[in-house]
């Protein structure tokens, strides 16, 4: 990162730090959303199917604890991605006109988005850890990070293509419907239905469900699917933003 991009990154962080309500909400929403969800869920038995095919008897409470993290992280990262990109489209063209390359203007925005996702992820995991401990932390964190990055990129794409209002509507619903319902082993027969594999939340959710309840890792396929989603979406975001900022 060169001097100009570094300055833009510092300004980007300063802009976020001047918004105390945003910082409060980025902590309060995960805290309340996750802790309340776990607290009000009954510990009723639930049979689920893990990615390796083995069946496991757990409880709705434990499942809700595990699955609330990617729902929250995906939801918040999606909205942050949407509005970070809207802000970039509105003001970063001036930076490009003033001599920045599109890459130098885009990189700081993506760094801010990544950092915000990490903050939300850290808060969400800390809140979850009070009531639920996954069997294997590292892949569990990776699965949740992938969910956040994928939805952050979807939010960014929505911001660049659908617009602010349509994008906000989309990011309000998509993580809930995808991770919250379609991928959620609390529903259906304890595993996602066939059609759910086509959704972006499939890979990350299978990775984190596997690691939440099993110490062996059997979700290599879903992990590769998640990485492929992230790669394609990130490339699309960068191409679209470069094109928008360079005025082509």
């Amino acid at each position, binding site marked *: 990162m060169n001097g100009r991009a570094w300055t833009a990154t510092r300004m980007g962080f300063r802009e976020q730090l001047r*918004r105390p*309500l*945003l910082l409060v*909400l*980025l902590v*309060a*929403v995960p805290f*309340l*959303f996750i802790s*309340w*969800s776990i607290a*009000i*869920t*009954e510990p*009723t038995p639930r049979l689920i199917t893990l990615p390796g095919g083995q069946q496991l008897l757990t409880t*709705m409470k434990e499942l*809700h604890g595990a699955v609330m993290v990617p729902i929250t992280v995906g*939801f*918040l990262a999606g*909205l*942050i991605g949407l*509005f970070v990109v*809207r802000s970039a489209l509105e003001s970063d063209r001036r930076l490009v006109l003033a001599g920045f390359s599109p890459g130098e203007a885009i990189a700081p925005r993506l760094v801010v988005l990544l950092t915000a996702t990490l903050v939300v992820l850290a808060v969400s995991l800390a809140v979850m850890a009070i009531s639920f401990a996954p069997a294997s932390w590292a892949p569990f964190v990776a699965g949740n990070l992938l969910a956040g990055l994928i939805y952050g990129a979807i939010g960014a794409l929505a911001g660049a*293509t*659908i*617009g*602010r*209002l*349509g994008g*906000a*509507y*989309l990011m*309000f*619903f998509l993580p*809930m*419907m995808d991770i919250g*319902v*379609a991928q*959620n082993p*609390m*529903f*259906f027969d304890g595993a996602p239905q066939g059609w759910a594999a086509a959704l972006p939340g499939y890979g990350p959710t299978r990775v984190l469900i596997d690691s939440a309840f099993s110490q062996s890792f059997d979700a290599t396929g879903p992990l590769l699917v998640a990485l492929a989603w992230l790669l394609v979406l990130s490339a699309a975001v960068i191409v679209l933003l470069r094109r928008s900022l360079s005025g082509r």
Partner: protein
Amino acid sequence: MIAIAISGADFLREHLRARMTLAMLVVLPALFVLVSASVLGEFAKALGGSVADDSASALGAGWAAAFLAGALGFFQVASSREADRRLALAGMGAGRVAVARISASILLGLFVSAVAFGTLWLVAGIAHPAHAFVAILIFALIYIGIGTLVGSFISEPLEGSLTVAFIFLIDAFSGPGMSGGGGIAQLMPTRKAADVLIAAGAGQSSPAGDWIAVGLTTLGALLLAAGAFWFSARPRSA
């Protein structure tokens, strides 16, 4: 009156002019009701609720309408503050701007509610359709009030969206049929509307007291919305 009608129609057109926004208003509530219809009963049981599957599906339609209407109300205020102030200064007056804005919001709420209701009817069937439609519309109108109130205090879209979502999630999770029972759950804005919707989903009528409570809450929400629009549009002294 004509100025209000023209401005109201313009505000509506402004909102629906972007085809993707219109598409989202149709597709999202329909998809949400479609996807959640079969699982909300199970979800309610997991939270210790006892609501029947049909009633839980109906509740999902109310939530879809409410969540969209909350965002809609917020952006109506937050993104139009400057334009509304100019309109008011140009002679229309803050009161008439507010009436035009609230009329456009109600029509959009009606639209979103109709989509959610229509999908619910097709997917799950409704034992008491008239009551269910009114209850879903009331969810939307209450959240238009909440969204506009948030928009009158918070202008940044991310903070405003998160605040609306924060209120919605507390309301939905503590509602009847989910975890809600006594205490703070009784104070939630859609508490009585949810009672009416759950009853309609189960094919039962609701007592007059519930309808009066729902009517008063809706009236309060709309007055709140009108106040928020007026507050945003009123000319400021330099």
